[in-house]
């Protein structure tokens, strides 16, 4: 089944638009540089706090243990890294990588407030070309980030490359709602309320239109499972969250 991932060569999805591949990274960066100061507040408002439960589900699945080295891709303002370090009682190390330095600056300020500065490194980088040697990390996560990557296959291959054998890959992302009635409600909510909230709270309606559209275009659960397996990660498992509004994919580098 051809996914929407495979479209005209040389273009990439940016919301409902197709843009030249080369333009997508800077467009995405502009979105996140713009919304960075209000990003965390918007997540709470848009999801009614649900994103906290979804991220907690990711950390549960990760089964963090002391001494673990975590790489959180598209880790922005640090939500996953903070939860990970809480779970291991700060006996671990997290590297947060994000394309947007503005998001990382917000994250680092939050880390300072929490007294976590020494336990997290903040790096601006490209998920498709990671600045780490092979087999560096025990776990690699990406939460609500893969959608924004231009070549998702390259990012998945890079995640595998930097994982140690036995390392865990977890991807949390918006997905395709599996309950028809919920899907209708969710569609109406996401296309009307979310951009309105974006305009009111973050002062950027277009950024949140992009968010909603990019969710619609993201591959469904099965397609993503296939992409993860194609990248060479094994034992791919899937868990729908909140009826498929989000999905948690898990896999291993064997």
């Amino acid at each position, binding site marked *: 089944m051809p996914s929407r991932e495979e479209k005209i060569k040389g273009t990439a999805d940016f919301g409902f638009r197709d843009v030249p591949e080369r333009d997508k990274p800077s467009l995405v960066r502009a979105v996140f540089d713009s919304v960075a100061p209000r990003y965390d507040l918007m997540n709470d408002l848009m999801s009614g706090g649900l994103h906290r439960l979804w991220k907690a589900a990711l950390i549960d699945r990760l089964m963090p243990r002391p001494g673990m080295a975590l790489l959180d891709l598209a880790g922005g303002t640090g939500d996953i890294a903070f939860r990970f370090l809480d779970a291991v009682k700060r006996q671990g190390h997290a590297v947060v990588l994000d394309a947007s*330095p503005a998001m990382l600056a917000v994250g680092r300020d939050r880390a300072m407030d929490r007294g976590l500065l020494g336990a997290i490194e903040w*790096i601006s*980088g*490209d998920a498709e*070309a990671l*600045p780490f040697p092979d087999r560096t990390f025990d776990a690699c996560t990406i939460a609500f980030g893969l959608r924004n990557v231009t070549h998702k296959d390259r990012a998945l291959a890079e995640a595998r490359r930097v994982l140690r054998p036995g390392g865990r890959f977890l991807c949390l992302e918006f997905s395709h709602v599996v309950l028809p009635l919920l899907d209708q409600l969710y569609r109406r909510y996401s296309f009307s309320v979310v951009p309105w909230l974006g305009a009111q709270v973050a002062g950027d309606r277009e950024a949140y239109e992009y968010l909603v559209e990019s969710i619609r275009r993201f591959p469904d659960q099965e397609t993503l499972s296939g992409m993860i397996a194609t990248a060479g990660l094994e034992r791919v498992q899937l868990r729908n969250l909140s009826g498929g509004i989000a999905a948690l994919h898990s896999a291993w580098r064997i």
Partner: protein
Amino acid sequence: MAKRSRAIDPRLLEVLVAPISQAPLRYDSEAQELISDQDGLAFPIRDGIPILLIDEARQIGDAPAAPAAAHESE
């Protein structure tokens, strides 16, 4: 001034390599750059955050590496 040259964690420097080539990086504390001699690229460190994006790197020396182009043809 102290803020500008915010120290980089030595542990971090040990683990970082250049994107794509995975060449080693050399820290220039004066210029606040991470330098890949192999690629002829200098990656900036802005406000203590290393920016390891090829698009943001400064070309140095005469290495016409053009790693972005190499990446495209993968």
